[in-house]
């Protein structure tokens, strides 16, 4: 990608960087190739590009200055938090500038009476909870990367986590932002007062992958920390029964704080890694966490246990104390690195399906896995139907990565056919541009482009991410089930 960059365009970006270095001070602008290297990819290292420069502003005014300079010169600008995106959302533009918000990491205010915190975009997710902890409050969305990832990045990706089913995504927990428009103006969307007048631009901004504006401040909702949380572990001899148990818990009117499932291969990989005491011969385990007041939790544990036993769980364990609760979760939380130990490489998918389709989709994935000769391990948020099939492969074997990507796209097609979506929480980024053409029609994609145009007519904010060009969809159309020019035309489709 780097070598193919248009030299004139790259020189233009360098000129903007030099101007910014004069205005903001040299320490704020990186142009040395070695200094740029750490920014060439995000959490999805398969996609890389060296930007022309990286700018690290220290204040909202400096952010505005960067946006203005890039907009005036027509230089692509890629905002970046901690770079933990798993879909290539923060991959630099080779002819553009990366705007790192890492230095804007102050918690500006914890407003206990209104139960909100005002933070700069570079504040880490967990740091918000740490700042709120002395008041008995916390910030609910807890993506796996919460130790590192930033609130600005969470806003861009509409990040979720284990607690989503009960406490919602970023969109439910960020009440306001201040952003810089591409015209270089500060605007405030939402706010502490509910239901800001006009269109809900805040809802539109959240999850827009840095393409509509640059966030300079976020106001997040804080919740009182639940007094009590306890977790049940249930083992099942087959996956459909475990899926049935999930549905019955929810039908009973119980919304667990977390409801997670792992299949047999995931259980064994995790057990080998963290020794959580999981039943390694089970076909599936469910982890069900209940939180609230001690009285509520007590009541719900009794009800959930009865449902699990009635569904035919062959074993139900209640974590006795905090230590055991952490142990039960450790396997789930370390499932990805655990899988990393049993395979040279793995590719993590991120589709969501209606829960009722769980058994059918997992069966479909198993059949595809066999047909492609690539093992798939399943770890997922059962409560909200967000699957994370991990495709195991070896990048050193010629053609295996391509087959893996092909299998990944097939899995996402299964999700869409089941009434689901191609990404539940990781975003589209660069990675899922082809899958977008599976989920959306030409008209819908054209509508997305029109919305982008309304905010960013010059298309300088994180260009070419998240929304594929129509030409690209037309090209990829040939790759899809409907096109009939598949590399594996004999495969069964379901």
């Amino acid at each position, binding site marked *: 990608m780097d070598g193919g960059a248009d030299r004139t365009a790259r020189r233009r970006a360098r000129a903007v960087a030099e101007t910014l270095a004069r205005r903001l001070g040299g320490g704020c602008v990186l142009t040395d190739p070695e200094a740029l290297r750490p920014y060439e990819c995000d959490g999805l290292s398969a996609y890389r590009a060296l930007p022309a420069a990286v700018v690290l502003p220290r204040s909202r005014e400096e952010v505005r200055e960067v946006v203005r300079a890039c907009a005036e010169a027509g230089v692509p600008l890629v905002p970046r938090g901690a770079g933990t995106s798993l879909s290539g959302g923060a991959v630099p533009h080779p002819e553009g500038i990366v705007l790192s918000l890492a230095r804007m990491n102050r918690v500006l205010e914890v407003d206990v009476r209104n139960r909100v915190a005002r933070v700069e975009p570079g504040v880490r997710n967990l740091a918000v909870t740490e700042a709120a902890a002395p008041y008995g409050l916390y910030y609910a969305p807890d993506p796996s990367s919460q130790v590192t990832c930033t609130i600005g990045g969470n806003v861009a990706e509409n990040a979720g986590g284990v607690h989503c089913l009960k406490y919602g995504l970023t969109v439910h927990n960020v009440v306001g932002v201040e952003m810089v428009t591409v015209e270089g103006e500060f605007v405030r969307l939402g706010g502490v007062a509910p*239901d800001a007048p006009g269109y809900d631009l805040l809802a539109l901004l959240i999850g827009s992958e840095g393409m509509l504006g640059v966030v300079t401040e976020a106001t997040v909702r804080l919740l009182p920390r639940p007094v009590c949380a306890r977790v049940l572990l249930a083992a099942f001899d087959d996956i459909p029964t475990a899926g049935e148990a999930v549905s019955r818990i929810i039908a009973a009117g119980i919304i667990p704080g977390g409801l997670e499932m792992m299949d047999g291969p995931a259980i064994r990989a995790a057990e080998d890694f963290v020794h959580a005491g999981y039943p390694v011969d089970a076909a599936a385990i469910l982890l069900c966490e209940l939180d609230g007041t001690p009285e509520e939790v007590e009541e719900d544990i009794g009800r959930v246990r009865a449902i699990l036993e009635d569904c035919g769980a062959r074993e139900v364990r209640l974590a006795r104390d905090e230590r055991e609760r952490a142990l039960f979760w450790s396997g789930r939380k370390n499932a990805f690195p655990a899988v990393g130990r049993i395979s040279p490489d793995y590719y993590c998918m991120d589709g969501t399906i209606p829960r009722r389709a769980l058994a059918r989709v997992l069966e479909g994935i198993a059949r595809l896995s066999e047909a492609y000769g690539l093992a798939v391990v399943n770890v997922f948020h059962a409560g909200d139907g967000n699957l994370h099939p991990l495709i195991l492969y070896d990048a050193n074997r010629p053609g295996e990565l391509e087959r893996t990507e092909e299998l990944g796209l097939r899995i996402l097609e299964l999700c869409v056919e089941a009434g689901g979506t191609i990404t539940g929480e990781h975003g589209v980024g660069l990675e899922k541009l082809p899958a977008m053409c599976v989920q959306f029609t030409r008209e819908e994609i054209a509508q997305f482009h029109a919305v982008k145009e309304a905010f960013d007519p010059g298309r300088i904010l994180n260009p070419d991410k998240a929304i594929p060009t129509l030409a690209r969809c037309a090209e990829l159309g040939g790759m899809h089930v409907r096109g009939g020019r598949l590399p594996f035309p004999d495969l069964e489709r379901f």
Partner: protein
Amino acid sequence: MAADRSAEIAERVREAAARGTPLIPQGGGTKAFLGEAVAGEPLPLAGHEGIVGYEPTELVITARAGTPLAEVEAALAAQGQMLGFEPPRLGAASTLGGVVAAGLSGPRRPWAGALRDFVLGVRLVNGRGEVLRFGGQVMKNVAGYDLSRLMAGAQGTLGVLLEVSLRVVPRPVREQTRVLALDAAGALERLAGLARRPLPLAGACHVAGRLHLRLAGAAAGVEAAAAEVGGEVMGEAEAAAFWDGVRDLAHPFFRDGEGALWRIALPPAAPPLPLAGEWLLDWGGGQRFLRSAEPAGRIREVAAAAGGHATRLSGPAAGVTVFHPLPEPILRLHRRLKAALDPHGILNPGRLYPGL
């Protein structure tokens, strides 16, 4: 009769786009007061109705926009579920599409979430007459820009809603309302203190010198919380009538009294505002209704100074807009977004602000 009129509605919009004729999408017409007057041809959605998908274990209901709200609520109640944001029922004719377009939420909103928080997906006709689907029927979905939540409160100015998928929640096992005798300032003070406690609150409304606290959830949790908040227990029937009255703007406060009716949204802990009139405080202080003869300009000034905004619920008056004016840079984004979805400007133009 339940029927799918999507194709016909889309055709109607295409025609209007070709002619440049403004259209006014109409559900049950119960919220006509909540916006500016619009000149145009009515586009009735009556008959475009029916619940097209409801699986209680999925916590999602999908229905056509013209479906009566009452029908949706009855279907949910039969399965022990409900709309968590408790939309105001402003009349029997109220439709699901109208509820989403108006974007109003009831007393449970600060704890359960607003209407837009429950919108999972929509099917709509944009101003070009194209039928588009955004979002879906699953909780977690970050594919593409979230144009479905954008429809909440857009009052049909960005698209004609055809179908809506909403997340639903279980009805609480137990509810109890406690009443504390406090003045407005005392109530706000008490609420700010309670905000840090993990209580199963589902309503906090102050009117006529009394703070009403609704607790909802597991039976044991409600009992424990009730002991903590104190006050008098309100009888079940009386409590249900009270919360319905607040939710549906049918409490005597809304029906009787002098002056125009205003809705002022504020940071919940904001102190009582220096505006003369009668007050009803809902949402733990985040939504305050005011009956007042004070000039609109002053009401908006005071609300804005306190970090909020004011909507006139008595309909438009000479020289007074229904909705709080927007700052120029935001209004510009609104206009361009409107043009992106409705390039011919035919969908309910001017309903929210001039040019939208």
